[in-house]
């Protein structure tokens, strides 16, 4: 997820969505996975649906990656709202975190979805605040607030001390 994938299609140029998928889908999926606080099914569904919709209206989308992010965020948010409204006892809301994420996922669940998205896009995907705002479909000011609060909460939950890499 390091580095910024190419995300700006040339106006008028046909977008190769297979290429967009190869470049952007892993990062997008991880971001939505974090946004959904470790619910794989939500991430799978939102990312697949966002790409499928993009393919349907490919000629109308000039800048596919931010569009995909905004759409996937919206779809995942719908799922999370629906899950709160109509909880299903056997769905994966309490699914065990992926291996290695035993500390992170419970901590992420203590953040708001917007804080999770901002923190992951800025600190994990290395995107500048303006780009985070573009992908979240919000303002840079709002992103800064999400980052400040999310960072503070993660420090409280996971600790601010330096970690051994081992």
């Amino acid at each position, binding site marked *: *997820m*390091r580095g910024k994938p190419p995300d700006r299609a040339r106006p008028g140029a046909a977008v190769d969505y*297979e290429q967009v*998928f*190869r470049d952007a*889908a*892993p990062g997008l*999926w*991880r971001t939505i*996975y*974090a946004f959904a606080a470790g619910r*794989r*099914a939500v*991430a*799978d*569904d939102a*990312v*697949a*649906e966002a*790409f*499928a*919709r993009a*393919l*349907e209206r490919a000629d109308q989308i000039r800048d596919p990656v931010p569009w995909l992010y905004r759409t996937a965020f919206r*779809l995942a948010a719908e*799922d999370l709202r*629906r899950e709160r409204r109509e909880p*299903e006892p*056997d*769905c*994966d809301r309490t699914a065990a975190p*992926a*291996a*290695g*994420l035993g*500390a*992170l996922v419970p*901590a992420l669940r203590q953040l708001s979805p917007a804080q999770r998205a901002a*923190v*992951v896009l800025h*600190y*994990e995907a290395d995107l500048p605040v303006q780009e985070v705002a573009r992908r979240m479909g919000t303002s840079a000011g709002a992103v800064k607030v999400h980052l400040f609060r999310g*960072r503070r909460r*993660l*420090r409280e*939950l*996971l*600790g*601010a*001390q*330096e*970690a*051994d*890499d081992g």
Partner: protein
Amino acid sequence: MAERWRHELGRLTDVEPPGDLWDRITQGPRRERSRARRTWPVIAPVAAALAVAVAAVTLALVRPSGPAPIQVAGHGGRFADPRFGWTIRYPAGMQARYFGSSGFVTSDGVRVTNFPPDLQATSTGTPPMGWLRYFPAGGVALQIWFEERFPTVPPLRDSALPLAPASFGRIRPYSGGTEPQPYYRVFYGDGFAFSAAVWLGPHASRASKNAIWAVLASLRFPPLTEGTIWQRRYYVLGPASRYPTGSVTHFPAASLPAEPSFPRSEGFYLIHAPRAFYVIDQVFGNPQRSSVTCTIAFDRKAFQFLCPGTDLRWNRTGQPLGAHARGGPDWALQLRVATVAHDGHVLFCPFFGGLLPLRLHGSPWQ
């Protein structure tokens, strides 16, 4: 060293999206648009006026295709898909109905239920999923369907049968209403991607649940015939066992079957690496230099591909050697996916891209 919270955040890079994500995408959008339902009270008068027109258009565009619907309510039986020939068996007390539509997006498959589905329910999706809004609490249902918005990258091999319930993931309901949260997965049969979804009503009996999973477990694909073209998509090559690991087999154009609507291949090499079968086209062309084209030969001793009479050589994974080694991707040979089908035949689609890196990370040899 990073602060601990950033260190933990970095662990996200270890999580991978599901391997079938791209295949799900190629199945098209799944969610029924909910906007109309939320705004229904507002637009009801307009909608009523439009209903007649919509019905007329629907009747014109979405019409049954293939054979007449198969329905053996109460008696159980066997369903055979009219296009791909796959079959399922379903028990007494269940009904299987073929559905199909043609138009801009085609979709066809079978719906198996232990209740009569309300097929008159309005629906905005393809295939129509409106019937799920009125799902009985004791109901169970299975739907298997093929829908391709555009051709998918062929799989390395067909999915293992029977499809295990544990391999299904929970997804968002299609239509809402009383629809239970479906179990869903994409699977591959004879080189094509299909969707399968199972719904279990909240009060469905254990016997009903077992029965619907058993219907899924009965899924079988028909055998393929070597030397033919399958579904205007694939050459059916020989059984995989004929091509030992490490082998390179030449298929000249003259040896390949032909059909009028099937783009004829100029010949290719089938390579069996430890991790996958793949294909290298017999004709190389540098996309940036149209003057550079040649018919590729294989040097079995050196295990290299070459353009005779030139200094162009490639290793077994198509990477250029010698003077062109640093020439960039335009000088590389493209590796394309070959698929091992359920019955062991190797399938190769000579068009639609199908590049191996889309299916396999890393070298096919390691």
